[in-house]
């Protein structure tokens, strides 16, 4: 296992914290949205956008960039917060989330938002798009890497498994998938709604290189990404154990916080928990 500098880890953890803060602010301002699944993937996004991916936010269409696909499009607030923090657009714009005319649609829209690689929202389709990008990179002899994040409930969509076969058949070793394994979907726990049974075994049986990691441990996420780069001839998936609503005590593990916005008081409480400095009069400044 590679060793990482403590200051690097601290920097990424701070980015993850800021992503969480901005998820809460944006959804709070919008009055609707999906906090649970946005918070659960914040650490993975922080590692990707502030360590792992070769990107240039000033040139969102740079040919040699690595690409990230948010297959579980309802976690758009997490993606937007990461993109804003990375400098694709102003952080203040996050407060226009879901408003008429905003570049920040309820689900990611590649035509509107700089840095969004493909439009998502209808679950189960992101891995296919990632395959297409990975195949194109190979055709063009580029060393770009493609990352895709899927929900665990999302794995119930048949297309995910059609795509999983394509990734392996095409030997897409430039592709890495993350499963945000938070155990919850809308109607209840994944176990109750439609059990995935042994999810790692499923991916392995499909021919993927499979890792199980703690999706909130920055070092483990970094190590997994490094390991994936070494795997040749097949794609890698990291099944990342996460907590839905991670970082906000009253949202953690709560199925009710899948698609509900926090009210003013809850926003305040959440921001305090996330270590945000609150100025007088309820206004909030970035920490």
């Amino acid at each position: 296992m590679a060793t990482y500098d403590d200051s690097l880890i601290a920097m990424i953890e701070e980015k993850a914290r800021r992503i969480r803060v901005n998820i809460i602010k944006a959804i709070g301002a919008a009055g609707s949205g999906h906090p649970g699944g946005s918070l659960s993937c914040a650490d993975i996004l922080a590692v990707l956008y502030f360590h792992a991916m070769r990107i240039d936010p000033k040139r969102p269409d740079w040919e040699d960039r690595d690409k990230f696909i948010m297959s579980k499009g309802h976690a758009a607030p997490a993606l937007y917060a990461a993109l804003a923090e990375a400098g694709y657009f102003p952080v203040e714009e996050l407060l226009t989330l879901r408003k008429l005319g905003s570049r920040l649609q309820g689900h990611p829209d590649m035509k509107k938002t700089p840095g969004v690689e493909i439009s998502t929202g209808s679950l189960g389709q992101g891995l296919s798009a990632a395959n297409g990008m990975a195949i194109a990179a190979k055709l063009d002899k580029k060393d770009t890497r493609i990352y895709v994040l899927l929900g665990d409930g999302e794995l119930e969509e048949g297309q995910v498994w059609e795509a999983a076969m394509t990734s392996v058949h095409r030997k897409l070793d430039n592709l890495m998938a993350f499963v945000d394994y938070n155990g919850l979907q809308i109607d209840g726990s994944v176990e109750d709604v439609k059990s995935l049974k042994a999810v790692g075994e499923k991916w392995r049986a499909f021919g993927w290189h499979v890792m199980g990691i703690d999706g909130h441990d920055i070092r483990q996420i970094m190590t997994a990404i490094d390991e994936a780069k070494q795997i040749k001839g097949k794609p890698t998936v990291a099944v990342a154990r996460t907590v839905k609503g991670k970082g906000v005590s009253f949202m953690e593990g709560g199925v009710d916080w899948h698609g509900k916005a926090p009210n003013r008081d809850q926003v305040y409480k959440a921001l305090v928990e996330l270590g945000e400095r609150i100025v007088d009069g309820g206004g909030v400044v970035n920490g």
Partner: protein
Amino acid sequence: MAEVGEVKGEAKEVKKIATRTAYGKALVELGKVNPNVVVLDADLAKSTKSGDFMKAFPDRFFEMGIAEQDMIGTAAGLAAAGKIPFASTFAVFAAGRVFDQVRQAVGYTKLNVKIGATHAGVTVGEDGASHQSVEDIALMRSIPNMTVIVPADAVETQKAVFAAAEYYGPVYLRMGREEVPVLFDEDYRFEIGKAVMLRDGKDVTIIACGVMVAPALEASEELSREGISARVLNMHTVKPIDREAIETAAKETGAIVTAEEHNIMGGFGSAVAEVVVSTLPVPVEMVGIKDVFGQSGKPAELLEYYGLTSGNIVEAARRAIARKAGKASPARSRRSRRQ
């Protein structure tokens, strides 16, 4: 033949209920009287309100997870074995994601599957275009054997659910997320394929379905203040469409406006126009979404943005009447120049 239906009087406080809420309630009532009814959902039972049925009849409810294609296929199997499945999810997935399963396993087979599609149209609101179905009427009505019903309010939804269960064959029920005014009394008569005349009139006929029925009624009032007498037809069944009511409207009023929360291409307006051109051609003006995707916003803002208000219906009525009189409408020619 269309008959004059009962519209509730101008009550001071209009009661508002979402048609999806009425759907959930109706399923429970239906479940009590018909043990053959089973309900399926694809991880949206809380939103489609099929969850009401799950609570009442857990043994006859099947949570399929995020697997709409599997859900429709399973529903077809249940129907082939004599059950009456109501498969519920958002309209965008029910008609779009699953089009081939609906076509092959439900339409072609003419199996007794009912598709309860909620969250239709732009009034989904903030979730944005990916979740706003503006093409489902066109898709579903193009499948042979499919019946397409778009209820206007909670009462009509309740009656449509029962009528769908009574009828043998595939039915697509299109419902909404937002609360809409309750327009009808409990003794409102609903019959599949029979339009209901809500207002009689002689200058123009507004033919509407779903959430556009309430604004159509408002538009007729506004028009009457201008001395224009507008007939209002609630065409709850888009397929099979009430040809007789349309032909009569064309004959008696000479101008038609259609109103739908859907793309005007291939949708409800097109369905009406198909009848008009093949019977008694008269001017038809369509109020609907002009071949674009939706976006995030508040439902009311989006109705305004996409031109789906009573005001838009009024303008369309004026244009239709002007065309009937042989006058080109100034509003229309300005618009077409800009495009």
